[in-house]
């Protein structure tokens, strides 16, 4: 493989309230990924190289072949990897996998085809020994000519270097069918692969019971967990699109200006809001620490994680499930909105007035380091 610019290639990380995965451009407006990466969400977040996120609408699903097409809110001018229509792979043929393993930035792993058409549970898979990890799902498996020969989908739980991809001919058929269809959203029947456009008990074409085949859930939006509903309502009030903030189950991450914000449930009792803002400089550190420990910041507080100053807010689950003051959660929502606003202002204040240096995760640093990137 030569002249391969990893930063220019159209492979992106996908975020939902269920987890993260990978996906790749099939044209400027559409991404191909796994069904299990996006389901049961109909809107997902796609992160660009500069960490900005854009919304993607899920248009097609094939739960049996674990494929999905996502339409992007804006076209992305990145290199599109061609889908190989030929399925003639051979064992020992070199392959590469692109994706976002364990949340790391776009990474490439290499291996060979272990078996071109391994039969598992009634389906054929491309088996490879290239390393596959959580977060790789939905990413492309490439041959030496940089053609997509498979879509990464799973690995063997109790074995090393036994990974599987959906063979590209299946992906080609799925994408071609999508391009011929006009329906905004649809799910391919697991039995006959005809398009189901609405929630219905039986497939019009093959008569399969779609309820027992677990297709109907793809037409429903499940009720959110109360913690999710609470946090996302508060984010909406703070003008943050919750879809763009989701980062797995009861986890959110996004930027407020240059400040990264992370929200998670640390235990069964607390929802934590934290923003790594800056690192202490070399002068007036005592004064800085006094500022950070001032009671005036309440209900917010600061701590040091390693050498990074974080702004924190903790909300007790009791305030989510049994809010006092007559059940009014608006004060906590206001806190969350204030937290988002303050984090953005405070990183600058710490740098300008207290001689701090930007924290590694702040957008400020990233933008400086990322000059020239797409």
């Amino acid at each position, binding site marked *: 493989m030569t002249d391969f610019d990893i930063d220019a290639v159209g492979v992106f990380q996908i975020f939902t309230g269920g987890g993260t*995965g990978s996906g790749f451009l099939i044209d400027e407006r559409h991404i191909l990924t*796994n069904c*299990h990466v996006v389901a049961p969400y109909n809107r997902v977040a796609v992160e660009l190289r500069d960490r900005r996120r854009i919304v993607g609408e899920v248009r097609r699903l094939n739960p049996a072949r*674990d494929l999905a097409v996502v339409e992007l809110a804006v076209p992305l001018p990145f290199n599109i990897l061609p889908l190989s229509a030929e399925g003639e792979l051979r064992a020992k043929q070199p392959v590469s996998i692109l994706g976002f393993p364990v949340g790391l930035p776009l990474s490439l792993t290499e291996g060979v085809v272990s078996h071109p058409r391994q039969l*598992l*549970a009634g389906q054929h898979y491309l088996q490879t020994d290239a390393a*596959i*990890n*959580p*977060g*790789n*799902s939905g990413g492309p498996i490439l041959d030496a000519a940089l053609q997509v020969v498979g879509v*990464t*989908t*799973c*690995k*063997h*739980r*109790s074995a090393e270097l036994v*990974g*599987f991809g959906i063979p590209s001919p299946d992906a080609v058929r799925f994408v071609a069918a999508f391009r011929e269809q006009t329906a905004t959203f649809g799910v391919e029947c697991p039995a006959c692969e005809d398009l189901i456009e609405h929630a219905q008990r039986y497939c019009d074409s093959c008569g399969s019971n779609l309820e027992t085949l677990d297709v109907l859930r793809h037409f429903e939006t499940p009720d959110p967990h109360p913690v999710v509903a609470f946090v996302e309502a508060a984010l909406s009030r703070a003008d943050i699109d919750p879809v763009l903030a989701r980062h797995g189950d009861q986890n959110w991450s996004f930027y407020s200006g240059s400040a990264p914000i992370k929200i998670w449930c*640390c*235990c*069964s*009792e*607390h929802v*934590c*809001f*934290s923003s790594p803002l800056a690192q202490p400089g070399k002068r007036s*550190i*005592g004064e800085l*620490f*006094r500022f*950070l*420990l*001032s*009671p005036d910041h*309440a209900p917010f*507080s*600061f*701590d*040091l*994680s390693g050498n990074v*100053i*974080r702004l*924190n807010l*903790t909300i*007790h*689950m*009791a*305030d989510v499930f*049994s*809010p*006092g*003051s*007559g059940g009014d959660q608006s*004060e906590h929502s206001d806190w969350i909105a204030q937290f988002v606003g303050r984090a953005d202002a405070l990183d600058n204040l710490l740098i300008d007035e207290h001689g701090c240096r930007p924290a590694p995760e702040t957008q400020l640093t990233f933008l400086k380091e990322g000059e020239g990137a797409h």
Partner: protein
Amino acid sequence: MAISSLTCPPPVRRAARTTSLDYTLLHSAVDRYVHGDYGPALAETFAHLFPDHEVPDLESHDFSFVQGSSRVSVRASDGMLTVSVPLVRLTEETITTAALRFVLTNISAAGQLYQPCLRGDEIYLEYTDRLTRLHPYKIREVLRRMPVEADKNDDWMVAEFRCAPLGREPIESLSTEELERAEHIWRTHWDEVDELVKESQRMRSLFFLNEITAYAIHHVGYALPLSGYWWSRISASGDTFNDTNVDPQTREASLSRCVKEMKAVTRESLQESLGHAHYAISPHAEGTEKILSANLGPEEYLDSIVRMHNGGRYMEAAVGLIGTYNYLLARFSWPLEIEEMMVAGLAEATEKPWRAAASALLEHASTLMDAASESEEVPESLEEDDETEDDETEDDDSEDDEVTT
């Protein structure tokens, strides 16, 4: 010569005898809170937490209580309730930047309701919330955890950073006889742990390492009324040597360093960390049948011990059982009858060769379990047990061989 037994003397530490908590009061408080009955909910929460105290009407009177070396103040005004504990004062002698960094790194944290704050040169732990937002679970969490945090750090900050004590409650000194016994326990304990570390290095058994690291902490925690600087030092080292996620070599090295440091402690210095503290809220969780069963019942852990005993690995079995008894006594409060049985069990094992000690404690554990299940004073389980279990439950992965990525 290789170590052939452990010493399990009667403790110098006095068991904290507090009245069992009435959980019907807590449930009633939650019910009242949910229905908007905030004042009575607050009163019932405090009545639940302080069964031995007369708690005044908090909306019109201040209230304070002692937890070890800390005095906790509770004050309501303008519809807000503030709970605060003084920690230390910064003086000209203080290594201020290091002290404040310690507070920001070790005491401030995401995921806790109370936080430290600096008022002038005085550092407090504080929690403030609106009276109409004081869910009983929030109050319970703050009143239980915040004073423990203060008690754990105040003496440490005084000794380590030359801070001045602030509002520190006196702790009852040990009598001369108690001090003699405490020092003997201290010296014997670290000598024995030193020998156990050598055995661990020889055996290279992770099970044994886990047992001796737990024993190193829990025996002094149970036998001695230890707080302040030396307890903080042991706890800080224990964060490494007693953490099963850390690699074994690092843990062994950390324990060896700790043993060396503790063996060098002078009598005068040790004395400063010893004393009978008083606690309005028990610093120990209530012992339950569920906890006893998890440690000494017919479950995985005891099965391992029995297999070792039957397989002639007497030292591992004995150290494991002695360590478990010490853990149960150090971390939980038990009805007098059960506590006395455990202490008697340890007395049966003290200075006995490994085989005899293990056999005695295995038999004793069975008798203890029977006594606990017959006792009306040992609850089967508490809400806290279930909460802890929830926190520690690992994700339930499916059994499929393929795993999506």
